[in-house]
């Protein structure tokens, strides 16, 4: 008689004393991934013009059929978007949306992007349909925080096309090249460091996203070279590089000044 099934009893009994894997969600929230797919925003240019040109590509590509767009010719005296047309009606039904981000990929003007917000709920089916007014960013260039939404710290900061374009999985040849338009409240954002670590923190106004988020990532998601002792060495070396570059820049500037004198 095969008695190996007794191993099941041993295993389940051992599990009684093990650490629990459950997170008690409303009390204890997991950090979000840097590029989490959440509710959409409609972006604007620096001058406040809407980026959406009413082309309906997003609606066409949507596999869940949740986007409804109607374009309208821009009024000549006060155009809404720099293009020929603008998104006159823009509705997303969040009871259908699967947050696949295909609309974001399809958009030719980076008008529609996604925030990291996913904690919003309704008591009415009609409330699940977000209109253009609700999706459009506010005058400060940040997504509108609607009363039934539960925004967390920093969720509304990096929500534009920049987020998509600086994705570290992009082609190496385009690393550090600005391929996105400016946006209201932020201007043209500088590129993120990317895989080779070149970065301009002064211009982006932040440390590279991945390193900022690292503190919140699950241990498995932190890149190997950033873990433990190796991570410390990596960060020390990076800061030394930065100091050396600053030093070199200052020396050349001084040398230039001397030469001019």
């Amino acid at each position, binding site marked *: 008689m095969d008695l190996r099934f007794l191993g099941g009893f041993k295993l389940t009994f051992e599990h009684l004393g093990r650490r629990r*894997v459950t997170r008690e969600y409303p009390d204890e929230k997991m950090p979000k991934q840097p590029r989490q797919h959440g509710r959409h925003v409609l972006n604007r240019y620096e001058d406040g013009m809407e980026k959406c040109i009413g082309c309906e590509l997003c609606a066409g590509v949507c596999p869940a059929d949740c986007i409804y767009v109607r374009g309208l010719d821009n009024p000549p005296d006060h155009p809404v978007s720099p293009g020929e047309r603008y998104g006159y009606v823009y509705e997303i039904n969040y009871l259908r949306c699967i947050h696949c981000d295909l609309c974001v990929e399809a958009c030719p003007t980076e008008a529609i992007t996604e925030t990291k917000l996913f904690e919003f709920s309704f008591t009415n089916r009609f409330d699940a349909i977000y209109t253009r007014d609700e999706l459009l960013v506010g005058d400060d260039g940040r997504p509108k925080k609607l009363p039934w939404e539960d925004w967390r710290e920093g969720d509304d900061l990096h929500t534009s096309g920049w987020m998509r374009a600086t994705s570290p999985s992009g082609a190496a040849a385009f690393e550090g090249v600005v391929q996105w338009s400016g946006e209201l409240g932020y201007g043209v954002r500088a590129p993120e460091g990317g895989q080779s670590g070149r970065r301009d923190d002064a211009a982006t106004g932040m440390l590279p996203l991945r390193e900022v988020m690292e503190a919140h990532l699950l241990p498995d998601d932190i890149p190997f070279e950033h873990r433990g002792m190796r991570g410390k060495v990596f960060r020390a070396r990076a800061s030394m590089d930065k100091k050396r570059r600053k030093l070199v820049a200052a020396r050349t500037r001084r040398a230039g000044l001397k030469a001019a004198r």
Partner: protein
Amino acid sequence: MNPLASFATDPLFFHGVHWVELLIVVIKVLVAFVVLLVSVMLMIWFERKVISDMQSRIGPNRAGPYGLFQTLADGIKLFFKEDLVPDQADRFVFKLAPYLALLPALLIFTVVPVGGDLSIAGHHFELQVADPPFGILFVLAMSSISVYGVMLAGWSSGSKYPLLGSVRASAQMISYEAALGLNVVAVVLTARALSTRAIVASQAHAFWDWNLIRLGFVPFFLFLISITAELNRPPFDLVEADSELVGGFNTEYSSIRFALFYLAEFMNTITMSAVVVTLFFGGPDGPIPRFIPTSDIWMPIVWFALKTLVFLFIYVWFRAALPRLRYDQLMDLGWKVLIPMSLGWLLVVAAVIVWGWWGLLVALAEVVLGAGLARAFGVGAARTETEEAF
């Protein structure tokens, strides 16, 4: 002595039946009912907690301290759900079935002795709702009736999955009831009584007098396995088999009727654990050599509750550790292993009781006969195979 005494061995009735006795009986029934319902509530909570611990989860922890009131919340929710009766259903039987499942579960508990004797205001009575002289037969009868609840529920639903579930249920429960009964007979032979209290009293001198040890462990394990099958608990939960039969016999049930099935299942688990404790572990008797009436009131009840709790834990452990049996494996186990083993062990027990240690010769004869039978079957099978090959 009162003529009633021949029907009920409870000393309460020795001096005739007056309204005081009736009142005591009613109170006993009410207390047992409430205790059983509350313990079912706690059992469901316990099962969910323990099984989630065994799977490194947390389990219910929202309703009340440690999620204790989760079952209550679920019950209230179920109560207010829409009560559906399928179009194709046999309406009367469909509505009757949940009660047929619940009632035996309640009734079995009445014959389980939960403690020693108690005296209140000159009335001496047993801590047991009823103590009929045929106690253990009553348990068997009721557990058979609960098959009807499951079977009729599936049959009357007018739907294929419940029907399949109930066909499985009737086959499974009937075949395991044979093994169950044979092991009970072994207990009855040593106790020389059918009354549950007498069975407890017969093993009440010391823990080595428990039927577990006295009968040589085997009947206990066979009984435990067949009772698990009788309860339709994992790994024998083919009746419900979520992954094969949607929900099994109760697929079409909703609202309070579904809750009744759920209640019955867990109540059966508790009562059957109590029956195992009664039959094989000396019931309310502690492990220290000690007879019930000499001990105080509370300790026997505590011992009884503790022992029952161990079995409840074991049932949850079964569920966490063992995968469900396939239908043919279930039938093989029932007919080819459990029944022959129970029968053989019963013969040995009977022989030892009658002839003393000479009775062990029966065991030897069984081994020889069994080997011969196995050989015969082997030859037969080999021959059929060769014939089929041509």
